[in-house]
């Protein structure tokens, strides 16, 4: 076409890359980090457990700190699973270039199922090591009505809890493996039919996911306070998870690009969209947590307020304020401008910041159930060691898996990849 001479000052499109372009592989620096991260993480995890057992306030405290760390990584993985499914559900074009990053993080779910075993083990000790409903003396210790309690333990008992937990893990792992496997098969074949299958399954899959995630939140986190209940609790955990997942995707993609991978594929436009979603989910998280709070606050019924009230006193009250101002208000205002969201470095910075805030959120949900507040210096050290260790293990494992299986960091033959590459917001 002769027209091309006229439009020479248009930005030059990058040369078409083949599917096995080296920039689609995990960068060598990342692959090299996998072992140190995993080993370092495992060492810190063991160190954290030892500190908790030897110098920490109690075994229960250590287990709660472990649950915090576990929930932190699990929530990111679950959020990524949700991200992948929702993109298929609405046949999104823009997100294809960042979808594989989410897929890599969601495939940790089966491994996280193994990390859940220590928590499951405490339930079978039958002495309330982690979950107090597990303690046969609960009624005697707390003065809860024995009759009400006899109804409650029909749901909260070790065998039924184990069955449910296994169902959750099985469903999540099954979904993660299904989506991961099909997406990778498409890397080889480029079949459109695979996309169609993934789309067709995403509707029911997301319903299963919603049920499992909500009930897992009830069972694993809400039952820490066995007499307290909030039907919104599952959504609250979900909101935090999805926010954290979007942040993790942004940070992961940004660091991949820094290391030399997918530099031409992920553009300002994709960061702009991730930024919009992060900003939106910051508000969604605040909206959901406030909705839960306000109903309880307004109703003002002791059995409902105990959970909130406990978290408004002392150090928990301070963390609550941190959540309001630093988890919601500051990032919400900070990411409001288009100029910020169209700056990849700024988006990655805010995402990193929010990932730290997400830890405060989980910490604030789980740790107040310990009798010994933050557990002093040793207690805080235990929490930090366990969380950092768990994150190290999580990242190391994920990178090791991607490297060992030659996973590309972008779905190279996805039928919507061209749409995603050409994506423009304005």
């Amino acid at each position: 076409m002769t027209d091309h001479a006229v439009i020479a000052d248009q930005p030059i499109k990058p040369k078409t890359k083949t599917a096995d372009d080296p920039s689609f592989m995990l960068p060598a620096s990342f692959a090299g980090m996998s072992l140190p991260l995993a080993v370092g993480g495992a060492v810190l995890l063991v160190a954290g457990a030892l500190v908790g057992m030897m110098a920490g306030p109690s075994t229960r405290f250590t287990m709660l700190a472990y649950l915090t760390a576990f929930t932190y990584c699990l929530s990111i993985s679950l959020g990524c699973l949700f991200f992948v499914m929702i993109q298929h559900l609405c046949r999104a074009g823009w997100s294809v270039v960042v979808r594989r990053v989410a897929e890599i993080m969601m495939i940790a779910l089966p491994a996280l199922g193994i990390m859940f075993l220590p928590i499951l083990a405490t339930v079978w000790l039958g002495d309330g090591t982690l979950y107090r409903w597990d303690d046969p003396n609960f009624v005697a210790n707390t003065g809860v009505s024995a009759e009400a309690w006899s109804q409650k333990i029909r749901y909260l008992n070790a065998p039924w809890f184990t069955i449910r937990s296994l169902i959750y893990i099985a469903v999540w792992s099954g979904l993660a493996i299904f989506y991961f496997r099909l997406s990778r098969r498409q890397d080889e074949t480029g079949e459109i039919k695979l996309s169609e299958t993934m789309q067709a399954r995403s509707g029911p899959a997301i319903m299963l996911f919603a049920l499992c995630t909500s009930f897992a939140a009830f069972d694993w986190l809400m039952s820490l306070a066995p007499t307290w209940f909030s039907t919104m609790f599952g959504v609250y955990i979900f909101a935090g998870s999805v926010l954290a997942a979007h942040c993790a995707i942004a940070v992961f993609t940004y660091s991949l690009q820094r290391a030399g991978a997918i530099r031409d594929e992920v553009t300002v436009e994709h960061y702009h969209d991730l930024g919009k979603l992060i900003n939106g989910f910051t508000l969604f998280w605040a909206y959901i947590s406030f909705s839960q709070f306000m109903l309880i606050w307004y109703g003002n019924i002791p059995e409902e307020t105990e959970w909130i009230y406990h978290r408004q006193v002392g150090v928990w009250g301070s963390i609550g304020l941190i959540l309001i101002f630093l988890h919601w208000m500051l990032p919400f205002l900070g990411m409001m401008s288009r100029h910020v969201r169209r700056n990849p470095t700024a988006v990655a910075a805010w995402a990193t910041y929010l990932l730290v805030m997400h830890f405060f959120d989980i910490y604030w949900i789980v740790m107040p159930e310990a009798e010994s507040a933050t557990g002093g210096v040793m207690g805080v050290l235990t929490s930090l060691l366990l969380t950092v260790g768990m994150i190290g293990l999580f990242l190391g494992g994920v990178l090791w898996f991607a490297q060992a299986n030659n996973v590309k960091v972008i779905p190279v033959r996805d039928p919507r990849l061209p749409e995603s590459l050409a994506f423009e917001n304005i």
Partner: protein
Amino acid sequence: MSHQAKPTIDTPKESKLFGTYAEFDNVDQLLAGCRKVRDAGYIKTDAYTPFPVHGIDKALGIKPTILPWICLACGLTGTSIALAMQIWMNAIDYPYIISGKPFISMPAFIPVTFELTVLLAAFGAFFGMLALNKLPMFSNPVFTDPRFDRATDDRFFLFVSAEDAKYNQASITKMFGCLGSGHVADIHEDTSSNTVPRPFFVIVGLLALFSTVPLLTLARMRVTNSGSPRFHVFYDMDFSPSKDAQQTTTLFADGRTMRPDVPGTVAVGQFNDSIDFYTGIDMNQLSMIDQPRATRLVRALLDEPANDESATEEPATEEPANESTMTPADEQVADEPIAEGSAVDAQDAAAAGVGAAAAAAIDKTPWLTTNPLPITAQSLENGRKNYEIYCAVCHGNDGGGNGLVNRRAQRILATAWVQPSSLHQDTLFAEQYADGKLFNTISNGIRKMPGYSAQIPTKNRWAIVAYVRALQQSQNASIDELPADKRSEVKKRQAEIEQRLREQADAEKKKAEAAANKI
């Protein structure tokens, strides 16, 4: 391919030039053209495309919009209005305790604040967008060119306005030609008549006329009466199954719709464990003098049925104090029909005097002599309010016994009317008529005056007693009772009034003298 053909150039001669456009048949050409025009320094340009084209803002060099700032400003306005409104309403204008929360309780305000923020931000975005785009714009001179219609179909137009400072018809036409445009044309101001066709006015006028019909109908309905039953557009709660007072019901065994209080119920803010406070009687002394009556009073107060006949006994026990204070003389006055308005004053005064004297002789009830309520400016103010609500209609604002109801009764020569007592008579002063007795009168009534215990809370009745004492003192005070700094003021005022009265008297005297002289 039309763009390869030699550009056809239309140049209509008449009317003012509006601008020049070039027609392209693909997006890339349009974007290239936009960049060229932008780089040549044109500012008043526009592009028309059948669908949104990404990147056209940048290609045309359009400055980032200020719409986000408008949206933010409107959103923050919404936040402030919502917070200010709720704080003012709930905490300042009408402080009202809701579920024991503080007047300013943020969590309760947040939903409204959130909604108003979103609403105003959305308004700002929507109307701001319209305003910034100068919409609605009913006509544009480019519409005069029939070729331009394809802007909604399959052609892309780049337009440069003649108002642009750099505009030069010849150079633009040349530039457009180089860009590969298939068609370049000048647009002239639309010279067609801009008179609005008459049928438009007729239709608008008719619509305006018809639109008044519902309003006029409503207005008529508001001012006229109709014999037919009300028309219920929405049934909603118009026909509530709830019962009215005094109706019967099958829901409860006793058939009463109004449920009696659970025995021992005390309304919020009404609790005072002293029985004296409720009766105005020193119960310790009373139990020494008249044990059965004390027992009856206590039982009535506690709502404790002595036995199964409580229902019949209650009316009798409810106002024992009233019974006992009704002296024979009082009853006589109450029962006596007073025929003549002129006779009322003297008769009542005499009767009251006699009655009070007789009452003092017979009444041995140990009335409380001091008001159990702390006397503060606040409680007196409260007493004044309650007095003016409940008492002043008969007794008058000044306590002289000539309130509005009394005046009306005298005007219509009401036959069964008993003149309300003036509160400014010795027999009603504290020395003869103890505070407790006055309280009892307010609570249970006297002669034709009904008891007010059902309407006025106990505390407020005591406040009225305090206020009546203040009222009595105000009408019978000497100047020495005033605070020193107020005395001179009152004296001055008194002198003024006396002076004026004297002048008035002098004037009248002169007038009378003048009239007498004339005769």
